[in-house]
Structure formats: C-alpha cells, structure tokens
C-alpha cells in the first residue's frame, strides 16, 4: 500500500479532482443538489434558489475584488443591469427570459468594462469611490427607467421548451445548473494563467506589467467577468422574482455583496463565495425567522431589523479583522486539524 | 559595572507560532560598538525589533527570558517608552517617511523629542547633504541620503544606545564608507553605544569592539572583533576569504558545507 497519493504527471497534479476525497465530496454535493427539492419544502427551496443566484453574483465579485484586487462597490447595480435586461427583453422584445439570461450577462459585462476604465488610473480608495459613484448613478438610471419601482417578467416568458420556470422546482434545477456551470468556469479561470495574471495585478500592477502582463487588459477582463456573473445573477433574479424594482440593487446590496466576498474568503472564488452567501444571506434569513418571534416575545419587535444590521455588520467587521482570508480559512484549519488528528502539533 | 543592555535567555515569537529566536543571550557594554553578524533570516532584525519594542507592530513578542537596559526590565514594553529611555532603532531598508519632505520628517520626530531649532541644526551638521535638500520629498532622496536621514531622525532623540539594522544594505561602496565613518564619528564624539546588525561583515568588524555571530535564531559564536576577524570560519563564510579571497567566478566548483549548529 502506498503511504499516500502521489501524482505521476503534472497534468494529474493540476487536475480538478486530485484525491479520492475530492471525488467523494463532489458526488455528495451533486446528490445533495439533485435531491434538495424532494427534501425541502417550498419555502426552503426558494431560499436555496436565492442562495444559488447570489452565489453566482458573489463569485463574479470575488473575481474582480478577490482575485484581481479591483475594488468594486457597483456590483449590485450590475446585477440590476442584468435583471432589467431580462425584464425588458421579455416585455418589449418578447424574448424568452431564459434565452435572455446570456444577453443579461453580456449587457452587464459591457457596462462593467466601462466601469473598469477608472481602474486603469485609479487605485484603492479612489477606485472604490469611483465604483460607488457608478453605483449611485446607475441607481438613478434605474429609477428613471423604472419609476414605478416594479418591472415584471411576464410568466409566459418563463417557459422554454415545455419547461415551466414558474414552477419552483424547475426553477431551482435551472438555477442550480447555471450556478454549477458558473462555478466550474470560475474555478478554471482562477487556476489558469488569466487567474495568475489577475493575482499579479492585485499584488503589484507595475511589476505585473514588467513581467509581461497586459495590465489594463487584465483589469478589464476581471471587470468583464465580474460583470458577466453579476448580469447572469441579475437575470436569474428577474426570472425568480415576480417583478424587479431598483431597490433590489442599491448601494447597501453592493456593500452586502462585498461583505460576502470578504467574509467568505477573498480570492477563494468558488467556495469562499458560497460560504459568504450562506453566512450573510441564507444563514441570516434562517436566524431572523427564529429571532423575530423571540424579540417580539421580549417586547422588542421594533428592534428586530435593527439587530439585523448590527449582527451582520459585526460579523463582517469581525471576520475581516480576525480572519484576513475569510471563513474559508477557518474551515481549512478545522480540516487540517482533523486530518492530523489525533496528532495536533 | 553591569552592561548597558543585556538580553537573557530570550525566546521571541511572531504570531501565531513562528519561533524565531531561541534562548538567546547577549550583552552590550556601555560605550562600545557591538555587531551581530549572520545570514539572512537568522533573526538579527527580529532581535533588534524586540529590544526596541517595535516587534509589537508585527504581532511578535518576547515569550521567555528578559531584556534589561541599565537595570530596568524593558521586555515587551511599548516602543515609544523605550525610545524615551534612550534606545532608538534605525530599521532595515531606510524606513523614513517617503511622502513627507525632509523637513517634515524632522518635524515629525521633533514632535516627540521636543528638539529646538538648535538641536535640529546640530544633528544636521553631521549630514551636510541633508541640509541642502530640506524641502525635497524624502522618497526622492538617493539611498545614501535616505539612510543619513534615518540616522538623523534617530539622533534627534539624543540616544544612548543606537540599534542599526543593516545600514549598508543596497548602498554604494563609497556611501558605505562615508556612512561607517559617520557612525564611528557619532560613537566617538557623542559617546553613543551602538548595536549593529550587518551582512557586510568586513565593514562591521572593522569598526566594532565586540561581535556576535547568529544563525537560525541562536548565537553560534562571539568574541572581540579582532579575534573574530582572524577566525578561520568567519573568514571563509562571512568575509569570503578562504585561503586568499575566493573569486565568485569559481563559485560553481565549490559548495561549502558549514554550520556550527
């Protein structure tokens, strides 16, 4: 018996699935994804669906911010671009909403590339503020095109080839399919030469250009990919929702998305993002539905939402301070601990 | 008379558990120049940071043993307190405030020392070049000038013990010579005790009275400078003189295996 798993070729060493445990985990995950509708009731299924949608969005932001180091506070607005693209394509052009999702990705990507222009010159806080400005200007634009704060995707546009996405189970499977595909793509990009170029730009862009990275192109690429993800997520959201309004894509949502990246694990595109979404969104929703009755019982119902802000904000800040690499690093440490168990250092 | 500074059985760690210095003891006598030699990563800077308290800013601390200065225990104190007691650490890599002008650099430190204009002028007298460039942003100074400024800032404190960390790093030979003669001069004229960490063993041993050799966080050798200068191993590994000087050109043909450890 070999004492461990050794790799014979670099190809094998670089493969996605390197160890039997990876394979096992993957199979378990797929089964869980497939079986969810059978296990979960309608409410939890819709929670799962939104979690998947936000996972897509956060993966995109994680590529822009975590991998390439280009701070963006306009991600929610880009989701909005995607959502409005789908809604208007369905309403005005009569396009099928599912078919409009790639279009949503591309539209948001185009806008995101525009937003990347400041990044050629700006860094850090200045860049963050430029994106914040873009976010607020886009919000204004949304409020002009959607003054009723309500743009629906007609239910009949959500049926493609006999599959009716108005049905929550179908919608869940569709979302899961898209999300997993996007996750695989994100993982591949992160480990490819494009991912390395982005990391180099993040660490030191002048040096990156000297070693042969086309810095503006790489930044634009990072924004483009991030925008595409945001657009797709927004498009999915438009299908999920009975109607979108611009309040779904405000600055506070951008802050939350950034929080998810930083809490989950910046630069850990796939699993870090998922962890961020599960903690800050799904986790909170579940907690809130327990917390609200509890607080009401204590006569503090008016504080329930105030607590939301306090708890989520504290989680974001504390994680950033205590765990620079995000919760995923905590998980890794736990894993490491058990791998070495019973021999802890 | 007790030594000016003594480090006794110190163990120094960075967060979370990076043990860099193990059970190290060393003494610096008042009025001497003492040098610490050692390869990269031996822990020279770590030691100086621990003495000056700056190590706190890198999440490090002395976990065992003690550091004594003129009879006071200064282990793990705050750097500004230690500075007030007369120990100033001139960090590696010319740590000056690059975005401030030379004058603002001096002002910033004078804020804490409370030096008057005369005292500032007195310090600048050692570094005539700086006087001409008071309004220049420090980041635009040449490397030598930056190192001079770094020392000048330290001098505003009228230190008793100056910790110099690789002052010659990345400097041209001429500047190195100038710098070392200035250090010598400071020692002679101001009576400042100096603890010097260096890679440039030749220069360091030239001006030192006493030397320590550090490797892997431990002192592996110590002695008066003139003794060390003649030591066979020091000659070979630190001064690059085996039997006569070994040329770098022949580097391929030998691969020395040394280690006192």
């Amino acid at each position, binding site marked *: 018996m070999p004492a461990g798993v050794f790799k014979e070729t670099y190809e094998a060493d670089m493969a996605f699935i390197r160890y039997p445990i990876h394979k096992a985990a993957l199979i378990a995950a797929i089964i869980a994804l497939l079986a969810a509708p059978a296990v979960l*009731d*309608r*409410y939890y299924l*819709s929670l799962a669906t*939104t979690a998947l949608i936000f996972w897509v969005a956060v993966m995109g932001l994680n590529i822009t911010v975590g991998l390439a180091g280009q701070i963006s506070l306009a991600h929610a607005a880009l989701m909005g671009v995607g959502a409005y693209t789908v809604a208007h394509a369905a309403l005005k052009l009569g396009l099928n909403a599912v078919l409009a999702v790639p279009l949503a990705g591309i539209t948001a990507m185009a806008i995101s590339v525009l937003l990347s222009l400041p990044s050629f010159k700006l860094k850090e806080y200045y860049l963050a503020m430029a994106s914040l400005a873009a976010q607020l200007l886009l919000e204004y634009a949304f*409020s*002009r095109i959607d*003054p*009723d*704060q*309500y743009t*629906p995707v007609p239910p009949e546009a959500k049926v493609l080839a006999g599959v009716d996405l108005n049905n929550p189970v179908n919608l869940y499977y569709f979302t899961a399919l898209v999300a997993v595909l996007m996750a695989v793509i994100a993982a591949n990009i992160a480990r490819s030469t494009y991912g390395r170029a982005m990391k180099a730009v993040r660490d030191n862009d002048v040096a990156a250009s000297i070693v042969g990275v086309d810095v503006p192109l790489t930044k634009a690429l990072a924004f483009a990919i991030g925008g595409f993800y945001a657009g797709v997520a927004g498009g999915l959201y438009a299908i999920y*929702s*009975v*109607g*979108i*309004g611009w*309040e*779904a894509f*405000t600055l506070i949502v951008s802050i939350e998305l950034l929080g998810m990246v930083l809490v989950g694990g910046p630069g850990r595109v796939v699993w870090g993002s998922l962890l961020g979404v599960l903690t800050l969104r799904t986790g909170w*929703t579940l907690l809130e*539905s327990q917390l*609200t009755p509890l607080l*009401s019982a204590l006569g503090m*119902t*008016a504080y*329930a*939402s*105030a607590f939301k*802000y306090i708890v989520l904000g504290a989680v974001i800040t504390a994680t950033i301070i205590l765990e620079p690499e995000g919760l995923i690093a905590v998980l890794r440490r736990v894993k490491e601990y058990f791998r070495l168990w019973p021999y802890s250092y | 008379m007790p030594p000016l500074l003594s480090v006794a059985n110190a163990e120094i760690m960075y967060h979370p558990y990076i043990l860099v210095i193990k059970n190290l003891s060393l003494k610096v006598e008042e009025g001497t120049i003492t040098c610490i030699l050692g390869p990269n990563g031996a822990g020279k800077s770590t030691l100086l940071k621990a003495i000056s308290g700056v190590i706190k800013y890198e999440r490090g601390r002395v976990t065992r043993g003690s550091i004594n200065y003129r009879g006071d225990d200064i282990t793990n104190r705050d750097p500004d307190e230690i500075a007030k007691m007369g120990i100033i650490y001139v960090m590696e890599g010319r740590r000056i405030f690059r975005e401030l002008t030379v004058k603002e650099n001096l002002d910033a430190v004078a804020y804490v020392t409370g030096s008057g204009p005369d005292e500032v002028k007195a310090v600048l007298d050692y570094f005539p070049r700086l006087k001409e460039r008071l309004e220049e942003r420090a980041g635009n100074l040449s490397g030598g000038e930056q190192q001079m400024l770094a020392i000048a800032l330290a001098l505003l404190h009228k230190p008793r013990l100056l910790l110099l960390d690789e002052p010659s790093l990345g400097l041209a030979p001429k500047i190195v010579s100038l710098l070392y003669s200035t250090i010598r001069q400071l020692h002679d004229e101001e009576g400042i005790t100096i603890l010097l960490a260096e890679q440039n063993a030749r220069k360091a041993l030239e001006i030192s009275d006493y030397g320590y050799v550090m490797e892997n966080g431990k002192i592996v050798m110590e002695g008066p400078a003139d003794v060390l200068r003649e030591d066979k191993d020091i000659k070979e590994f630190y001064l690059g003189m085996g039997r006569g000087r070994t040329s770098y050109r022949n580097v391929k043909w030998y691969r020395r295996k040394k280690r006192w450890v």
Partner: protein
Amino acid sequence: GRGSEETAGEEEVITINVGLLVDETGPTSDVGIGYARGAEAAFKYFNEKGIYTKDGVRVEINYIKRDYAYNPTQAEEFYREFRDRYNVIAVIGWGTADTEKLSDQVARDKIVYISASYSAKLVVKPYNFFPAPDYSTQACAGLAWLREEYGGGKIALAYDSKVAYSRSPIPAIKEASKILGLEVVGDFDLPLRASEADAERVAREIKAAGADFVWCGNTISSCSLLARALAKVGADVVMLVNVWGFDERSPDLVGEEAYGMVAGISPFIYPVFASGIEGFNVIYEAAELAGIPREEVTLRFVQGFVNVWLLVKAIESVTSEDLLSRGGEALKEILESQTFDFGGITAAPVKFQPGFHVPYKDVYIVMLAEDGSLVLEGKYSAPKGIDCARVTIERG
C-alpha cells in the same frame, strides 16, 4: 397554518395566519413605525377580546410580522415566507411599490392583501383592499376643497418623479384641475430625500411660477422642508399635502413662519379630533391594552389599526367552514359584499364594489392654523364629473 384546529378548554378555536409587512427601519419608517404599532395593537386587542365567525367559532389570528425596510424585493422574500411557510390567508401590507408588485401574485395565490398604499392601480386588483379612497380620489377631493375655499388659481405640483407613491395621483390631479378651473403651472421634482437647499430651490421656482397653490406628494420630511422654504422665500401660497406628508408632527417640522399655509388630506379623522367619535373608544381601549399612552395614538397608528380592523370585520362576517376551506377567497367575497362601519373614523362607511375597490370618495382636510394648531376644515368629496381613480389607472 390555515385550518389548524385546536381545542382550548371546551371552546373550539381556529387559528389563522396573517402576515404583517411593515417598514420600521427603511426610508418610510418615520411613519411606518406608528402604523406597525397600530396594527399590532389591533391584532392583540381583537385576539384578546375574541374574534368570532358568523357561526360563532372563535378565531385566533397569529400574525407574523416582518420588517422589509421599504425594499420591494425584500417584501417579495417575506411574502414567499408568509405564503410558503405560514400559509397565510391575508397580509397587512405597506408600501405602494411592493403592494403593486405583489398584487397579481396575491390574486393567483388567493390571499387578501390590505395595505397602507392607497394607490389607484390597486383598486382593480381582485385581492387588494384598503379602507380609504385611493390617492387620486383623495387628491381630487383636496382640490375640491381648494376650489371651494379659495376659488380658482394656479397650482404647482411638487413630488418625486421616481417614486411610485409620489407619482401615483399626478395624472388625476392634472385632469381634475381642468374641471375645477385650476391651472397647473408645472411639475417640480422634489426628491423624497430633499436637502434644505433642494427645497429652497424648488420653492423659489414655484414662487417664480406664480403659483397660488402647491401640491406636495411626498412624505413628511421633504414636504415640511418645502413648506419651510416656501415661507422663507416669501411665497404666498397654500400647500396641500398628500396623506403621508402631513400629520401631528407637521407644526413642529414646518416652523412658525409656515403656519397658516399648509393643509393635509386624510381619509381618517385625526385623533386630536377624536372626542365624540365612538370608533375611537375601541382604539383607545386597544392602546391601553397594549400599554400605549393616548398621546402616542397618532394618525399613523389609526391607519394601521383600521387596516387590521377591516380584516377582523371580514372574518367576523364569514362562516368558520368557509374560512377554513376557502380562506382568502371567502374573505374577498365578504369584503366585496358588505358595508363596514368604523364608528366615524373613516370619512364614510366602507363599501367595496366587486372589481373596483374604491370604498368611498370623501376625505378630511386638516389645516395648520396661524396659531400652530390643527383645525379640521371638514369633509370634502371628489368632484362629480370625473372618476379620478380611473384616470390614474388609464394614464399612469
């Protein structure tokens, strides 16, 4: 969930779930908190007092409150929770954007939705109800008051053109002005989040336009800033404010200089004029039960209370069997077939036509007098020749 039956002692009790969607932390929370308190007090009060169906079965309402911070997307999330997790048969809602957004969905889900948005677009939605005229009808009634009190003149419309609530009555106002002989001198964009400088700029523009009247369609913050600014720039106008832009706090907010210039519309009578109105006995009793002092019973509290009250009245008119088997659908039928009286709190008794839910067409006008007190000008009705709600539905 719906229909869960239990026996408490000897009495049979039906528990039904009702969602309560409020804004206590969002941009409209300055009025939303009062509304939420009113609604909660009503739930507690009626549960305590006992709600009995037509056939005498006791109903316990289990309300699930969620604060959606005026974010329609969040509202949808909570609506899903109400529907999928708690199987509610009715929702007490809040804002215009979210109510309009959910209106088709609630019809599909057959859930009665009583909200605080009096948007005209909702009156044709089968499952949406509110015990007041829609904003357009209210505004028209307000214009009728202006006409009657001051004669004709020029009117300026100040509102936030990107907020559904503010925009809602504008088409009707423009149409009704023609009939009443008022001249609209322009639309002035006043952000819901106006700064004082914004308000002053708009005030100067209004003054320059030579307006005699101003319609303010926003909420209390920007409307009171506008009133203050109008006084500062010395505009000689009367400002008529939509229901959410004027209440008991207005005297403080607009400042002395604006006294005598501002009037507010309300479909419900203000608590300051409560004496002699029997419906208020119920409200005060409920407030007492909830431990809320009388002075905190505000117009907003009343609005929340009455919405729940309407639901309770509907439940009381339905049979237990209907309630259990058809839930929201049964309530809808009752709401569309009966007249509900709130003891003089609403400007008129509530009677919904099937397919067109404008329960009455009267409003109260409350004036902020020169001495800073609130004066009830009286009850006014929308002009006869025009159906303001329809105008908005067709044009909006």
